[in-house]
């Protein structure tokens, strides 16, 4: 291995505390399991849809028609069981890949009816990373998992930012695009009989505020790579990104619950310093050993 290759490999898999990776794995697993259980009926029962509306995405693109209701329920039950095992550290080498594969399938299937739920993308990618890391047997595997999860987080935000500039260009820099979207999103939610943010109308009427929020959005999204530079910058960016999602919730009534929970940023933070999390993760770790 040459010096450059060794340096790159070292950056991709730095040494990091095992406890941090185990706590992050537990948090990601717990969030994913609770998310699945909280929306169990919605995700397991696709019978409310009509077959003609089926528009498969991602891994479900292999399908040409919806699968039987008994199969969707069975997959959801097996996946939830694997999720509980993964989170609690029981047979993690089997439970991790099973949970990842099951959740990827379930969420892809749920997004195959005309509306893709983008709030779930990062959760699935993080779960895939920690499923692959398995028992996190040493500090290098811990560092690899945390760095890979951080890279997935950062690149997702970068893609969202670049897309805004590609599609919206100067309208995104001026705040015009955001103003149009905030107003239209609130309007359509009212007309679709759903909840909307009471702040939307006020925000949409303030060009200065819209431009500030637009630039903040682009700063968070395009500036995400700074989170890979140092731990301090990672924490600062994580806070800015979390506030960005709080702002989306407040102005557009759109809840990206994974980042809002903070778990999406756990790989950037010294989460093992929280005594309760460390205790729980140690128990899960003992079980997986």
């Amino acid at each position: 291995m040459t010096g450059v290759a060794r340096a790159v490999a070292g950056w991709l898999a730095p040494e990091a505390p095992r406890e941090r990776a185990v706590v992050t794995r537990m948090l990601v697993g717990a969030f994913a399991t609770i998310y699945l259980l909280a929306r169990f009926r919605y995700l397991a029962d696709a019978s409310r849809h009509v077959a003609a509306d089926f528009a498969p995405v991602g891994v479900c693109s292999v399908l040409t028609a919806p699968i039987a209701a008994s199969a969707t329920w069975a997959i959801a039950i097996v996946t939830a069981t694997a999720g509980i095992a993964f989170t609690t550290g029981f047979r993690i080498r089997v439970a991790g890949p099973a949970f990842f594969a099951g959740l990827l399938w379930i969420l892809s299937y749920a997004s195959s009816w005309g509306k893709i739920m983008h709030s779930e993308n990062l959760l699935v990618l993080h779960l895939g990373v920690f499923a692959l890391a398995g028992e996190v047997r040493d500090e290098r595997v811990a560092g690899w998992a945390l760095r890979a999860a951080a890279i997935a987080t950062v690149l997702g935000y970068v893609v969202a930012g670049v897309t805004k500039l590609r599609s919206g260009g100067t309208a995104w820099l001026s705040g015009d695009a955001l103003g149009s979207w905030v107003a239209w999103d609130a309007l359509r939610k009212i007309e679709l009989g759903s909840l909307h943010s009471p702040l939307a109308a006020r925000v949409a009427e303030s060009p200065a505020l819209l431009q500030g929020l637009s630039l903040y959005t682009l700063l968070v999204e395009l500036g995400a790579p700074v989170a890979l530079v140092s731990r301090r910058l990672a924490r600062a960016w994580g806070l800015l990104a979390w506030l960005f999602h709080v702002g989306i919730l407040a102005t557009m009534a759109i809840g990206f619950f994974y980042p809002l929970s903070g778990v999406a940023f756990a790989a950037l933070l010294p989460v093992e310093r929280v005594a309760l999390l460390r205790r729980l993760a140690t128990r899960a770790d003992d079980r997986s050993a």
Partner: protein
Amino acid sequence: MTEGAGPASPAPSSKLVVVTPLLGALILSPLARERGWDSFPISSYPMFARGDLGTVNELAHVLLVDPDGGRAPAAPSLVGTPEPMIAMTIVRTHVERGSAAELCASIASRAHDARISAVAIEIVTSSFDARRYFSGRPDARTPLERVVHARCEVAR
């Protein structure tokens, strides 16, 4: 983020190290595709990205007609989903396919089962001016234009 204390750990499996660039390339790959490309869990995140939305737009949606002739939005659950954006997609798809009457009948059936007081259901496409909509004027929420694709009675 590196914690350098203690004796060096063995290098991780080269398979793991190779996974990260592949994952990164996969996440970045939508940038090499056409604008608006979308999938799951890899996406270009096209929602809210367009800059030419403007203020006047069309919306396919469902109205509940009350006994006095007043109209109110139907909840997404009546369309068959708890998600408003999926409800919007379902209505738009049926309008485009020419099967609005079929959708109308299924919503009327759900409205009957839910004992909703509406006397009829309408599947419509409305054109709204978002700036005017939130202006506070008495007629602010009246659409600029409305096309009724299907109307069906709710069984009493």
